[in-house]
């Protein structure tokens, strides 16, 4: 593969709001969808001839279905609070990556066709005809947003650009102008069952191999049960955990936790994917169809509990949407939250003293936590608000001696996206991904300099894939990122047959 030269932002340890550079990344565009994937998802295979009317019709339809869109298209006052908050603006300097400007791409069409003023006054009040250029702009900039919701934290009305981006992508899909990366992956879920496109037997083989490998290298006996009917826990995790690095290290961690807890668990070859890219394209029915595999998995394996692995957008969908999409979970034991996050589960065990952890196993690390955007701002853990910040930190601190937080304006609800979320985790968007990661890298650099941080703990499959790829561009080894349960797994004292 030819090495493309990217312009890598210089790390200073802090973010400076840049002067705007119009059209800086207007040419960085993700690849268009393949016809077969569009068809499989129920979208037109290519741009429909009457796309102008169809796009406006779809916009109108969505506005009738989504209060968020309906309200957000009206009430922005352009106060500017969001303009220096998006990692993609801070990194690319392209003003259309400012949340308000991204929203305006949709708003100007809304005004032109669906408001009285726009119909009469047109350009005077920023109402514009929908043209091929409009579509291209939508396509470009709605795929330079990771739907991370950071802007909504600073908007006086909580306007959530993710809702706008989802609507924009949904309209584009509905007229046959989809994005390859996301549609291809959803089609893999439809046909094979998971994002990686690994059939059940392939996963089984990988797990067998993993089991043998762990036994040979550490002597620990770790099981990865698959399709065990009647196991207490059905465990759903992103398919990347079965295969990718550093994801698989967390898989080992989960297995060790379940083993020490002495609880029966199983993976499902049918529900072998926690991820749900249906959210990225904003299509409710696609999202529900993908989520439905979980429901079917439960029906097949009849577990008492449903536990979810480390993944950001997936946890948002599982925590916030599953109950609506595929609930209620009547067959599960009502004593436990459904679904429950693996960090909640592990945290609970730690609090009860049920896990034997050796912190020194992670002494080589000075750990910091990158709060995943979707976990931080789209979901929760535990019983009180902000549990999604406290629980992962408490789990990490129970597994290592050295922990340091990054700057307050870059963590918790203020966290940045890793730069690869929301359907941007594709090679042709590498330029955006590198620049979008800049604010996080600056914060990391700061704690590296001050505290010697050398490990970013993650709870998201996309963060893991993105960061392990991006770190080297910034001059850091990819091994400096890994899952929280990678740390947990290392710290769990398990000397195999000699006894737990």
């Amino acid at each position, binding site marked *: 593969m030819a090495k493309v030269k990217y312009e890598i932002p210089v790390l200073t340890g802090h973010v400076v*709001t840049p002067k*705007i550079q119009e059209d800086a990344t207007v040419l960085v565009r993700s690849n268009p969808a393949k016809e077969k994937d569009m068809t499989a998802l129920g979208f037109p295979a290519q741009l429909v001839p009457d796309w102008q009317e169809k796009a406006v019709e779809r916009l109108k339809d969505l*506005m009738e*279905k*989504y*209060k*968020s869109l*309906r*309200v*957000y298209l*009206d*009430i*922005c*006052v*352009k*106060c*500017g*609070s*969001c*303009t*220096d*908050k998006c990692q993609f603006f801070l990194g690319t300097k392209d*003003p259309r990556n*400012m949340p*308000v*400007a991204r929203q*305006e791409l949709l708003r100007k069409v809304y005004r032109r066709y669906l*408001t*009285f*003023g726009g119909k009469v006054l047109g350009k*005077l*009040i*920023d109402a514009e005809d929908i043209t091929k250029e409009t579509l291209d702009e939508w396509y470009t900039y709605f795929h330079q947003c990771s739907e991370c*919701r950071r802007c*909504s*934290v*600073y*908007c*006086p*009305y*909580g*306007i*959530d650009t993710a*809702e706008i981006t989802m609507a924009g992508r949904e309209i584009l899909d509905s007229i046959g102008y989809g994005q390859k990366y996301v549609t291809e992956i959803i089609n893999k879920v439809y046909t094979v069952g998971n994002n990686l496109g690994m059939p059940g037997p392939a996963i089984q083989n990988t797990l067998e191999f993993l089991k043998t490998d762990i036994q040979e290298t550490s002597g620990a006996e770790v099981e990865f049960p698959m399709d065990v009917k009647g196991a207490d826990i059905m465990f759903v995790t992103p398919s990347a955990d079965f295969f990718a690095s550093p994801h698989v290290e967390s898989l080992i961690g989960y297995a060790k936790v379940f083993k020490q807890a002495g609880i029966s668990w199983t993976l499902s070859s049918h529900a072998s994917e926690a991820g749900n890219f249906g959210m990225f394209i904003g299509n*409710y*029915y696609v999202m*529900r169809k993908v989520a439905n595999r979980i429901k079917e998995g439960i029906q097949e394996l009849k577990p008492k509990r449903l536990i979810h692995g480390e993944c950001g957008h997936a946890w948002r969908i599982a*925590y916030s*949407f599953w*109950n*609506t999409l595929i609930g209620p979970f009547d067959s599960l034991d009502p004593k436990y939250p*459904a679904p429950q996050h693996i960090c909640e589960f592990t945290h609970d065990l730690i609090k009860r003293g049920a896990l034997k952890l050796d912190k020194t196993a992670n002494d080589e690390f000075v750990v910091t936590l990158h709060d995943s955007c979707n976990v931080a*701002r*789209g*979901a*929760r853990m535990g019983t009180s*608000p*902000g549990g999604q*910040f406290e629980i992962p930190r408490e789990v990490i601190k129970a597994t290592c001696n050295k922990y340091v937080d990054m700057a307050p304006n870059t963590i918790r*609800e203020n966290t940045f996206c890793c730069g690869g979320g929301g359907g941007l985790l594709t090679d042709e968007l590498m330029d955006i991904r590198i620049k979008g990661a800049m604010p996080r890298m600056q914060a990391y650099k700061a704690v590296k300099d001050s505290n010697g941080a050398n490990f970013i703990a993650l709870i998201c499959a996309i963060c893991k894939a993105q960061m392990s790829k991006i770190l080297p561009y910034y001059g850091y080894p990819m091994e400096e990122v890994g899952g929280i349960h990678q740390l947990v797994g290392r710290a769990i004292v398990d000397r195999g047959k000699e006894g737990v």
Partner: protein
Amino acid sequence: MEISLLTIIFMAMAYGAGAIFIIGFLRKLIIYAKTPSPLKIPTTPAPINPAGSFFRVLGDVVLFRNLFKGNKWTWIGGIIFHYSFLIVVLRHLRYFMYPVAGWDMALQDAGIYAGIVLPIAVLYLLMRRTTVDRTMFVSSLADYFVLALIGGIAVTGLLMKFYVRPFMVDVKGFIYGLVTVNPSTIPLDPVFMLHITLVFMLLAYFPFSKLVHAGGVLFSPSRFMCDNPREKRHINPWATDLSA
């Protein structure tokens, strides 16, 4: 008493603008209220029950908390602008009631100070909008128009207070006449006429503009929804048919 044509015209404008404002704004709010929310999308961390969400939104409305997090300079300007505007409007209620309520009498002095602060706040917001390249980029004619309109209303108001004072008995008579539908001749005062014409424009423009944020802020799902999706199943009203 003979009613002048001018009085009739201004009365028509007043009722027209008032009707557009009330019907237009209510229509928007009803649409907002009726549009479904398919999914739970509070921006977390969020309150875990409706009572908590009520106070969250109240905080948004009263304190502009998110703006405070986002930009202190805009927050200061925004707070001063909105509260001075509010006090000025409340002060003006004395023209709409007879006798004037005690609380409104008590507000009269504060109203004058607020009236002086208001155009300064408008100028400040305008300066900020035009000096920061990012807000400059997203600002359009509509944004400047609103600032100019409110600035114009404030300035004509202050002119009347300090320089060209109209005969206040006639002013009150005309406005109270509007309230009681008992026409009273409009004072032939150009500044007053300009002042109320600008107010009518603002009222009529309101429902079709970003000014609907005034009520829209109550309907923002990321803010008013509470965080309890696991405990309480949220139903999507347009997707109850699972076979669709």
